[in-house]
């Protein structure tokens, strides 16, 4: 366990009347006018209060736990401190429910008065958090959600992301597929924001490299009856298929694709999430699938080896990309706090240091764009022996175009 204390906060505003709630939010809005978050006089001596708003239950619970473990591992390695200050945690279970996100975030910022919020996995929840963070000038570190908007139109100097943008992980795949000699590609995904953003980024990269999209198949989220669309792929006979699914849907799609014999004649490419986290359940059906992501299971760099050993020792599990994203979130915060000797009131200096930070991440070199999105290598991985093994660097130091972000202009 980490040094310092952890408080669990309930997530429901049960019993809170509408009027009280409105008063609460109005108060926060006023607070947003001040340029600095008010700090108690004891600021230097008091522990740094970190709000972890993550899915501790529900579909993404496992992802939330790995982010949490990764973040705490880094803090432990610093002796329970960040920037020389003791750390205390306040946990909120966001349950991956966008409708409760604003209330949960307001509770962390307003009642718990945390110094920084770390969260979350689900993009819909994260976007609500970004909105509150902007309104209240709260520092926010996003350890997973990939919605392009968070470091696009909604970007802010004090909102950081240590994971990826949907665009970033899929754009490099376009060139990879074209370079492999495939001219006609069919895309398939769920019809929802993340799916559309990922497929669009792939299309952008692929058409730029001279390829043609022969068909765009989609089905409603989170439906898993793929048989009709798989038959359609066989009819269209493309040179390759690009797919984005995750979780149970990804397993079923990969297995259905193999069961229909398509894996033998039409190579399957995808965003890394197609095979990450559920590869054991996919078994042999996944062998040979190539995906792009900002991490691979066997990255051979000293930071990754040290991280994997420490994570295994702490939790008994193998670290994955979610744990790395949490770990790097703490590293980023540590860099900013160290520069201001733990004084969060010196916000401008802290933010400037974080924006310029260069982190030796387990995923490889990590720095940040003007929109505070990671600049990082995107790796091409191939499923071999039940692992996502590194094949090559699909594109080094990929920088999200941050479309619509005023900071990047």
């Amino acid at each position, binding site marked *: 366990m980490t040094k310092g204390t952890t408080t669990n906060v309930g997530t429901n505003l049960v019993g809170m009347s509408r009027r009280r709630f409105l008063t609460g939010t109005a108060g926060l809005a006023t607070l947003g006018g001040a340029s600095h978050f008010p700090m108690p006089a004891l600021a230097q001596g008091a522990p740094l209060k970190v709000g972890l708003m993550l899915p501790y239950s529900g*579909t993404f*619970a*496992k992802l939330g736990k790995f982010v949490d473990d990764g973040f705490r591992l880094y803090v432990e390695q610093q002796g329970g401190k960040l920037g020389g200050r003791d750390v205390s945690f306040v946990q909120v279970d966001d349950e991956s429910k966008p409708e409760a996100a604003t209330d949960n975030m307001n509770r962390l910022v307003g009642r718990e008065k945390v110094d920084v919020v770390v969260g979350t996995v689900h993009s819909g929840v994260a976007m609500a958090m970004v909105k509150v963070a902007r309104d209240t000038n709260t520092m926010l570190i996003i350890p997973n959600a990939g919605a392009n908007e968070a470091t696009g139109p909604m970007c802010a100097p004090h909102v950081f992301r240590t994971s990826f943008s949907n665009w970033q992980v899929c754009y490099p795949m376009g060139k990879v597929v074209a370079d492999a000699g495939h001219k006609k590609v069919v895309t398939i995904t769920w*019809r929802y924001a993340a799916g559309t953003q990922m497929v669009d980024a792939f299309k952008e990269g692929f058409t730029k490299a001279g390829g043609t999209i022969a068909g765009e*198949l*989609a*089905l*409603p989220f*989170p*439906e*898993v*009856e793929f*048989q*009709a*669309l798989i*038959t*359609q792929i*066989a*009819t269209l*006979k493309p040179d390759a298929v690009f797919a984005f699914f995750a*979780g*149970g849907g990804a*397993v*079923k799609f990969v*297995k*259905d694709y193999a*069961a*229909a*014999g*398509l894996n033998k*004649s*039409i190579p399957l490419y995808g965003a890394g999430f197609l095979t990450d986290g*559920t590869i*054991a*359940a*996919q*078994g042999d059906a996944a062998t040979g699938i190539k995906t792009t992501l900002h991490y691979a299971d066997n990255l051979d760099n000293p930071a990754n080896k040290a991280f994997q050993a420490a994570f295994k020792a702490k939790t008994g599990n193998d670290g994955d990309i979610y744990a790395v994203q949490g770990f790097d979130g703490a590293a980023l915060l540590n860099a900013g706090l160290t520069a201001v000797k733990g004084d969060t009131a010196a916000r401008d200096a802290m933010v400037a240091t974080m924006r310029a930070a260069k982190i030796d991440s387990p995923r490889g070199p990590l720095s940040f764009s003007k929109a505070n999105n990671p600049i990082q290598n995107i790796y091409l991985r191939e499923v071999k022996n039940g692992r996502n093994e590194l094949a090559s660097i699909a594109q080094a130091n990929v920088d999200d175009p941050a479309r619509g972000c005023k900071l990047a202009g």
Partner: protein
Amino acid sequence: MDGLTFAVQLLNGVQYGLVLFLVASGLTLVFGILGVINLAHGAFYMLGAYLAYWIAAMTGSFWAALLGSVGISFVLGLALENVFIKRMYGRDHLAQVLLSFGMILVIDEIRQILFGKDVHSVAPPAWLSGSIKLTDVLSYPVYRLALCGFCLVMAIAIFYVIQRTRIGMVIRAGAENREMTRSLGIPFDTVNRFVFASGIALAALGGAVVAPVSTVFPGMGDSMLILSFVVVVLGGIGSVSGAAIGALLIGLTDTFGKVFFPQISSILIYVLMAGILLWRPNGILGKREV
């Protein structure tokens, strides 16, 4: 679309419909005969799949998994009927909805404790794991064909039990007029318990037989519950033949909807349901008000 592709899509639709029928038949029995709305039907579908995964992992036998999953669910159904469901007969639907919603939460939590929240898969028996080559790129998995056959056999068995056996006669009589059946000295409590447990066992059987093609994951029951209700309402509450027609209609609509009208495929089955209910407010073969 050439003839062969059309035939394959037709097969896809029929196969999906047959699976829907298998799961929905349990719901229509419980809804139609006991008058109980069981929102937890999807949760039992999921539980059946997880039990199948668990037993298959322990014994290595698909058939043991199938039998074990159905057996455990049947016994669980008997116990639940005895403790909870029998208090729900004749109560208003709100009480039933609350109880069965609570059951969803409890089953989900039990699943969480026993099996965790990982995604799993179940291997089909070796002799069913091959596939048949249809075109140069497309093959059809043998297990899916076997699944069609199995669901058909189950459908015939359900019809036979309900239409041709003594217990089926009692069940039909009970659904027609509960008080009269009781006054004729038929042990109705036992029949109720049997019907409820069979409904649960059918849901679990559905989950277990589709596990090899569908993957076992926590939220798998949610969409199945909604589809099952659509099938039941479409076919007419309590009508097993209606459920069969409804399930096939939905399977075909969904499959061809995805092929021909991909933009609106998600709402097509609900448009179909609304259209049929306008034409026949009690469902295709229904006698009772929806």
